């Protein structure tokens, strides 16, 4: 099954999935989370980093990271 965590990302937020041939566009916070996932960080660690980088409360960042991970899974299934 394809896994969007291993997308090839370019600097402008475009990502390509070599397995399916699909392309995706991401905004800044999505790129940040995906890159962190690719580095092997867990969701709590990513939320802390996101909260620091964008100056947002940790609780908000944590929700966003978890929600985004689910969206990645959904997109992988739909691909």
């Amino acid at each position, binding site marked *: 099954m394809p896994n*969007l965590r291993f997308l090839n990302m370019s600097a402008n*937020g*475009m*990502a390509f999935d070599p397995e399916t041939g*699909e*392309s*995706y*566009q*991401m*905004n*800044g*916070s*999505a790129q*940040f*989370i*995906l890159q962190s996932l690719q580095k092997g960080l867990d969701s709590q660690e990513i939320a802390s980093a996101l909260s620091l980088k*964008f*100056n*947002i*409360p940790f609780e*908000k960042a944590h929700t*966003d*990271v978890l*929600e*985004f991970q*689910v*969206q*990645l899974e*959904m*997109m992988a*299934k*739909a*691909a």
Partner: protein
Amino acid sequence: MSNDYTKPSIVKVGNPLYAKHGSSAQSYHFVRDAIEGVKISDLVAQYGSPLFVFSERSLRLKYQQAFKAMQRYYPNLVFGWSYKTNYLNGICQVFHQEGAIAEVVSQFEYEKARSLGIPGNQIIFNGPHKPEGILRRALLEGAQVHADHFYEIEDAEKIAKENGSPITIGIRINLDSGIYPLWSRFGFNLESGQAWAAIRRIAESPHLRFGGVHCHIGTFIMDPTAYSRAIQKLSKLIREAESLVGYNIEYIDLGGGFPSMSQLKGVYQPPEVAISSVEDYAESIGKELQWLASRKPAPKLCFELGRHLVDEAGYLITQVVADKALPDGRRAYVLDAGVNLLYTSTWYKYKIELDRDVPGMMEPSILNGPLCMNIDVVDEAILLPRLPRFQNLILSPVGAYNVTQSMQFIEYRPNIVMIGENKSISLLRRKEGLEDLNRLEG
């Protein structure tokens, strides 16, 4: 919170919505921060969300434009305000001030018009259900009544007989003007001879007098020439009727049906291209009616325009309650207003504006209402930047039929305001509360 943070967003390239809109544009172009100079945020702060907002200026302007356009072709012109389209007292009063009489289609609407001080002889009474009590009142008060079926002619005859003097009555006619769908269930059919039979029935009664013909061919008629075709058929019938009864008819009533500047689902041209101007309608109609316009005196020409006059004056402000990603790749928003308040969402794709510039990548999105029902969809395919909670959206045009056909289902119906001249705001109807609903249950 940092200004440059937007929640994470990922979209698959190649979504058909992008193809339709030409790009994965980076900003949403439809921004409106005020209605008639009053800030959306101030309206919401004062009256809450959702909120219907009407522009008095737009109501008056549309009325005057349509009346002027028709007046160029016809001298004895009467506009009846189609109550069912929006019978908020404040809206009816604006049209009455502009000179409209009332066009009603039920006992409730007749009583509403009378309670607003409109005398019976300034009311056009249509509709398939006129219980005898209200029919008697209307006929005796001199209303312009259009019989919808033979029983109503009999009822009118009985009332006239009891009253001891003849009563004038007209008939509603349906005909094939080349438009689809054909509204054949109201009034008497022309092509089959039913309308002629109704006229004979009236003419041959010693208690009745034939007043004229009414024909509302349908709604959102995008082809002005449909009216020309209808008038050609009606003209022939009028000539025959006049020679049967031996006097000239008092009026011809062409109903409503002019469209508003709305995007219909399935029509791909924007309304500015797809919809003809009111002057085009006036021309199509006026040319066919020259033979009556030149009479001295000309019979009354009545119109009962509804959505054309009120739709564009109405806006609905609604807020984002929540959002989530759907497995199909769309973002689903929950709004605090849905099909409970937006009856016309079945046919219209509304213009959707935000009250500020929201930055961010466009996502294919679906707008759902607050009902716990799967059918509660306001827009099933729209590209939007990621909207935060409580973001205000402004939907338009929503002035026609949505207030009168809104449902009290699960939610309270909201405040309705009108912005008048000098940005003054009047509350046309306050929000419902539990006590309003419980009162009816005793």
